[in-house]
């Protein structure tokens, strides 16, 4: 059986920079910062007080009234809103009856309905469990976002949810590619969603991994990440299916790789073996040489360990070419959106290909001598990347790397 080529025909997002793709692309080009004081919950007793919140999110405006918002958590409605935009972009609204049976949903998730769950736990602890309304936990499960999308659209294709912390969204897109490639689905709604919540915010605080100011990837003075939230959804379909529908193609999903550090639960392997093997696996899967990569969207969390390790990994894989590839961390603008980040950065990669720019790493003013590659820092750079590699490295040593390309008839890797 031939591998089906898999293309991207729809994009949708809500994140700290924008609540739609057009505004998101503009914000990336302008180097806007989505990080600011947190308002979603009281941060008085936390060590840090800033984050990258989704702003002015009005799900009842972004989601058509026929879809009930009742029982949807913030995560569910963010994922649903991004899905609606991606489907509309792919000209799949109203959703065609004929496609329901072979359309799947694959999401990467993180905290799910934990923000709402926390309110439940507070009542539960206060009342000793007697008066707490357990129904508030109905949306706690991170899998519910995919369930809502699939149920509301009446889809009958494969459905699942990945939970690998910061690489969930990237893995979801990889798995979706596999499903289409082997014809287990014609169309897959794939992406990631992550809401901010107290538990996650507390967790990264006690790990001393949060910069009290905005994060500064690859900077000498970086002190940690900035937590963010987002939903990012792409519509993937087989090339022949997209052609039959006669719709514009935004890019091609060329390949991906997964690896594991097997080193430490939170610290990256300083030898950078896991990250390097993952990039190599992705290049091999895509059938391209390292020299063909035009832009690397870095994991770039701005923790001391990650940025130094990632720089070493890129040098290991790309050799002398490492110094010639522009690299940036868009987490400096969007915050680290954990379970959504891999999918959000896949969208950034597609936008950079489609709109001919390399987004900047803002707040990078004083480069760390250990991070001496071409980190694009002062404003977006005009460029025409054809092949983009996007890194996601997670707690648990779970690494996923995606490779996305400009769509050409022959296949960009063959040109």
């Amino acid at each position: 059986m031939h591998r089906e080529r898999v293309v991207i025909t729809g994009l949708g997002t809500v994140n700290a920079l924008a609540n739609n793709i057009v505004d998101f692309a503009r914000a990336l080009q302008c180097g806007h910062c989505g990080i600011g004081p947190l308002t979603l919950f009281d941060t008085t007793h936390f060590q840090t007080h800033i984050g990258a919140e989704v702003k002015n999110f009005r799900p009842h405006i972004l989601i058509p009234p026929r879809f009930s918002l009742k029982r949807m958590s913030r995560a569910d409605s963010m994922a649903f809103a991004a899905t609606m935009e991606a489907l509309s972009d792919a000209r799949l609204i109203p959703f065609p009856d004929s496609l329901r049976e072979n359309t799947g949903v694959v999401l990467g998730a993180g905290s799910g309905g934990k923000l709402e769950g926390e309110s439940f736990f507070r009542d539960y602890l206060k009342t000793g469990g007697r008066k707490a309304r357990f129904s508030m936990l109905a949306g706690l499960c991170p899998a519910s976002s995919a369930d809502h999308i699939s149920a509301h659209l009446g889809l009958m294709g494969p459905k699942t949810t990945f939970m690998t912390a910061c690489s969930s969204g990237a893995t979801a897109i990889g798995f979706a590619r596999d499903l289409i490639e082997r014809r287990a689905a014609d169309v897959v709604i794939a992406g990631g969603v992550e809401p901010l919540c107290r538990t996650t915010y507390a967790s990264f605080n006690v790990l001393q991994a949060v910069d009290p100011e905005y994060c500064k990837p690859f900077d000498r003075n970086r002190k940690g990440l900035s937590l963010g939230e987002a939903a990012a959804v792409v519509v993937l379909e087989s090339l022949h299916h997209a052609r039959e529908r006669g719709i514009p193609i935004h890019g091609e999903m060329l390949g991906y790789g997964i690896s594991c550090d097997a080193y430490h639960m939170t610290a990256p392997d300083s030898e950078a073996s896991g990250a390097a093997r993952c990039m190599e696996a992705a290049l091999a899967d895509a059938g391209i040489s390292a020299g063909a990569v035009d832009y690397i969207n870095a994991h770039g969390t701005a923790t001391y360990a990650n940025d130094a390790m990632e720089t070493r990994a890129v040098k290991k894989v790309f050799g002398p070419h490492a110094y010639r590839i522009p690299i940036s961390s868009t987490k400096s603008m969007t915050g680290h959106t954990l379970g959504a980040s891999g999918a959000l950065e896949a969208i950034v990669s597609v936008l950079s290909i489609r709109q001919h720019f390399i987004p900047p790493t803002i707040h990078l003013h004083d480069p760390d001598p250990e991070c001496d590659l071409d980190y694009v820092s002062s404003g977006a750079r005009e460029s025409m990347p054809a092949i983009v590699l996007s890194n996601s490295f997670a707690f648990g040593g779970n690494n996923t790397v995606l490779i996305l390309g400009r769509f050409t008839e022959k296949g960009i890797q063959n040109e």
Partner: protein
Amino acid sequence: MGKNLMSRRVAVTGIGLVTPLGVGKERFTEALFRGESALKEIAAFDTSSFASHLGAEIGHFLARDFISAKYLRRMDRLSQITVASSRLALEDAQIVVNTTNRDRIGIILGTAFGPTDLKIHCARILFTEGPMMINPILVPNSVMNAPAGHASIELGFRGVNTTIHHHAASAETSIVYAVMEIQRGAADIILTGGADIISEFFFEALVRFKAISPVNGGNESARPFDVHRNGPVAGEGCGIVCLESLEHARQRGAIPYCEIAGWGMSSSPAPPTDWPADAKGASLAMMRALQSSHCTTEDIDVIQAASNGGKNPDRIEADACLSLFGSETAPPLVSSIKGASGESFSSGGIRAAALALSLREGVVPPTLGLVDPIVPLPFVTGEARKADIKNGLLNAFSHGGTNVSIVMRKIEQG
């Protein structure tokens, strides 16, 4: 690479189990085929204020028998049972992880609820002592991918590693993904299956959601496919199967239990906490599984059912099986082990191991608790039955409408 995406055959070469029916393959097999029940009064915590009291708990399990002292203290219970099962599966498959093979060995794990004990503990600290009082050692364990991460560190394999979290289809979906990864050449060997635990808070939530027996009164018990069923009994455990490309297994002289011949996935529209209205999605998953394994309904000899004694799931699976297999002259034997081992949610690893053992031994375990079936299908009840079986179907149909069906096939010698 890639021209023959689905032609590479994937075999089951090892089994690792930490379950209420026993720790290790030998004890599990004995209990399973003897028709022993693991349903007992919960011992880990006091259930007197709850409407339910029964559970299937992991009995004698000493984590230090399986995990080095250095790492043991960093692990919560969910990670411990996962790492122990993973070690047992590798040993059963006679695989020694070393520097030459470690990058080609991985793990894909399913968990439906994750470390619920740890999560409620963190929530408690958050709202009583304050957010900065959470112990940083606990944080990495509270993520769903911690068990697979711990397994990779303790056992030293560095290949494909991911975690799937989608209700009671988590483990079966993980098995499917492991097959796909081996077929596309991303790994030679992948440990896969599922792990979930019972904790006090989780048990209380199941009771309050009316998700476990006795849902509408009556005697508390698990009665899969029975007219008088009144909900499942909560279980826990970890089941890991070692999947390997058949070629790789043969090269090193391993004797596989069986192979994964094909699979089907589907959804049925349903709210995340409710069941689909009909069996259409469940049937679709089974039909897709048959199609991808190039067989017909007549080829299936046994069904390792997902049914757990719940009102809706059992009805859906019974209807789906009846519609697909009901007109056969000799429909497949149907068996659910959840009357013996309870509903452990990500039970697919344990049940895949049970089906692999059935295929190797030619024995189908009984469905305990089933007396009065809701549909006329050849259920195995009372005691285990000897049968000549070649193809078995492993089903997972979960609330929220996520369906997975996997065909496991005996490998002919030669």
